[in-house]
């Protein structure tokens, strides 16, 4: 059981810095997700922890041990790859036994442990199959068992679910998270899928251009994005120009958005005084237009809608010409408005204000 400490990790390829100083302390047993678009450096960071990429600067500690210059095969990590990376010429049993054999464990222990872990991932009885005879989901289960059976200090997963179809992906989230909790293995999970990140993690680090933009528990990152980028990448958000009314250093801000006054929290101060309002679709109200919009309200027209049972999503064109997404749930969703209806959109007080510059 290992605490993982990253100390100012930097990595450059041909003078291009892909990791720009990443420091983070990941407590023992944490499921830690690196979330970001391709090219943000998340996989490079994972490979630095694995030891396949040597950082240009900075240190990696597993607990008290500095592993920065330890070869990958001596780091005692478990790794799960996007393409499963099962040895195609070896049976499921031999794949899972591979790491134990490398550690020269006695045969009866290998047999017992491999059986136990195959059982844990729900593949008991398939130990004689070849990987080519299995489905993608089964293969990833084998890969997971293979990585965990050696009792790794850190489990590293590089987009392990992106080759699976949607239904299987949801199912595998559960398998991975349950096993991780059972074994209490410190885990770094790389993904570009925010839903996965929100559903599985103890901690999410949203990465952008080689930096961690924001790090925190899933609900924290979702509810309180500190930048426009994070708000857009985690969950969906309507971002509209917001003109500050008065001094914005306090927690509660007053802004003019689309000709109306909206209040909410200001997440951080914009050096140039330019702000965006972050309004999640569920933080906007919608009703049929009757009379002029009041404070915190804007007139608009429904451009399109999708009824999905428990919720209905609307695309609304505001009077200023911008478009916003609005979602209604439960009772409200059951009596949808029609296409082309004139409506009034209202901002509630859960709206946030972030600097425009970082977006």
């Amino acid at each position: 059981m290992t605490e993982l400490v990253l100390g100012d990790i930097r990595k450059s390829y041909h003078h291009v810095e892909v990791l720009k100083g990443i420091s983070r302390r990941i407590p023992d047993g944490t499921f830690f997700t690196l979330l970001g678009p391709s090219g943000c450096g998340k996989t490079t960071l994972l490979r630095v922890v694995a030891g396949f990429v040597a950082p240009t600067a900075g240190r990696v500690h597993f607990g008290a041990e500095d592993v920065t210059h330890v070869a990958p095969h001596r780091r005692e990590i478990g790794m799960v790859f996007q393409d499963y990376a099962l040895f195609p010429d070896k049976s499921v049993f031999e794949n899972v036994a591979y790491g134990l054999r490398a550690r020269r464990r006695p045969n009866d222990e290998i047999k017992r442990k491999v059986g136990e872990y195959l059982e844990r991932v729900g593949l008991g009885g398939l130990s004689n199959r070849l990987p080519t005879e299995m489905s993608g989901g089964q293969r990833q289960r084998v890969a997971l068992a293979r990585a965990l059976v050696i009792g790794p200090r850190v489990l590293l997963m590089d987009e392990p679910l992106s080759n699976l179809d949607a239904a299987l992906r949801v199912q595998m989230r559960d398998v991975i998270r349950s096993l991780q909790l059972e074994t209490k293995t410190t885990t770094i999970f790389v993904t570009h899928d925010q839903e996965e990140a929100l559903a599985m993690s103890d901690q999410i680090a949203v990465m952008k251009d080689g930096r961690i933009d924001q790090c925190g528990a899933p609900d924290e990152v979702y509810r309180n994005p500190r930048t426009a980028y994070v708000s857009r990448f985690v969950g969906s958000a309507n971002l509209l120009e917001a003109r500050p009314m008065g001094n914005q250093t306090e927690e509660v801000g007053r802004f003019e958005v689309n000709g109306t006054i909206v209040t909410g929290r200001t997440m951080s101060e914009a050096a140039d005084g330019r702000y965006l309002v972050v309004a999640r679709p569920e933080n906007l109200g919608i009703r049929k237009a009757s009379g002029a919009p009041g404070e915190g309200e804007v007139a608009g027209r429904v451009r399109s809608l999708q009824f999905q049972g428990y919720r209905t999503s609307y695309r609304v064109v505001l009077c200023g010409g911008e478009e916003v997404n609005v979602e209604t749930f439960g009772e409200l969703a059951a009596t949808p408005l029609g296409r082309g209806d004139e409506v009034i959109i209202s901002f509630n007080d859960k709206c946030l204000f972030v600097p425009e510059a970082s977006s």
Partner: protein
Amino acid sequence: MNRFLPWGLLSLFALGFLLLFIAYPILGVLLRSFIGEKGAFSTEGFVIFLTQGRYLEALLNSIILGIAVTFICTLVGVFLAFIVARFEIPFSNIVFLLPLSVLIIPELISAQSWIMVFGNNGLITHLFDALGIPFPRFYGWFGLIYVMTLTYYVHIFLAALAALRGFDHSLEEAGQSLGTAPLPTYIRVVFPTILPAVLSSGLVVFTLVVGNFAISIALGQRVPLLSVLTYRSFISELGGNPTMQSTLAMVSILLVASVLFLQRWYISKRDYQMVAGRTPPRAKLKGWKSLLAGGSAGLIIVLSLLPAFVVLAGSFTYARGPVMYWGQFTLDNYTRILDFNLGVIGNSLRFASLATLFGVTFATLVSYLLVKKRNALSSTLDYLLLLPLTISGTVLGIALAQGFNSGPLVLTGTAAIMVLAMMLRRLPFGVRNASSNLHNISNSLEEASVSLGVPPGRTFFNVVLPLMAPGIAAAAILTWVTTVAELSASVVIYQAGQETLPIQIFRLISSDLMARASAFGVINMIIILVPVFFGIRVMKVKLFSS
């Protein structure tokens, strides 16, 4: 980073090996071609080459022969590919023996068998004599073009067949739906798309013809050719002034290298990729068309396989000197080998197994380094590996013999140089075979193994090597096949007591002792055939996949 050191060291070793045994000897040839009799810089070699008629004539003859054979091979190869790909013909399965026949029947034996049919004492020649009809002389242009066409058309056939098979039938249907009739459509739509494959294999055939030694010397007594002249200059001037041999070798290298360069440039410019579509259905032919298509394809196939049977028959035929008594069977030709020439078989087996062992090991290592562990040395390695393709066997033999007959490393006259020559000739192909599977092995497989605690070196043996095995097996079989049949380099450098089967056959053919040559030929073919058969049947190796 010291954890990457082993691969860097191995790259360095591979680079050093290729520099020493390929680049250095060729550079030596280049330099010596500019050194005159007095040991100073001089262009006299090239002056002689350009002013003495026979050298220029030989160069011109080689080029003409190359063009003629390439042209006829293209006609035959494309025609046969077209018939096989588009029509249902009887015994079409036998077509797949063709690439094998080229492997199993060495060029020298092919030339020999056709001499036994059409030569001065040939079967058909005698038949025509008996009927009083004058038969055209086989030695010379006719024989050269005939035997070389039958030897090399398979290259174009295979390339054209692959291109035709890969051709998307719906393109053709699109052409037809726009209102053109089937045959014009075919010519207008299909031929342009298979042209790159045909042209590039054609250029390869050209380099093979120009570099060919065995057929050239067996049939070309009356037509001076560059490769034969190069060989003769070495044999007669051994120990004397090497200027002329170097000059001739240089001209041959320049000719082949420029054609190969043209071929690579052409391939790189025309990176045509056909979306693998539906393979067109094979049409049934009726009546005279069926007879014509099946008959002509059958004839080509019979002519390709015939040499094996002629030599087999000849080996059991009684002969007195050059005169063969067809119909009188004997085992004498074999018992003589058992009594006097077992050493020749031993030499062949010994040299070929060593060349295969070292060649395949080296090819495996290099292909792994080039595909998986690229570093600053890799592109230099890539280029050095192309060098053996640019030099004919004769030139390689001369380069090695000249390069290592003095100085700190003397190899000339040793068995090592024989093994080296055989191994180097096949190396580029060996690397290509060995790396064929490597591109499909994801890097994450190795990383998975390393992450599970197995160091990189052992990971290579545990994970990569088993997956490379099919390619390595193909490399081993093909290296074995070509080294057992190797003549042009070994005949330049062998010493008394180092005769191999092809060298022995070559000497017997030169003395017109065809029956005895046939017995050696049969043994040679068996030695080739056994591993090929074992590989294809037992190990399921795909020899022609790449």
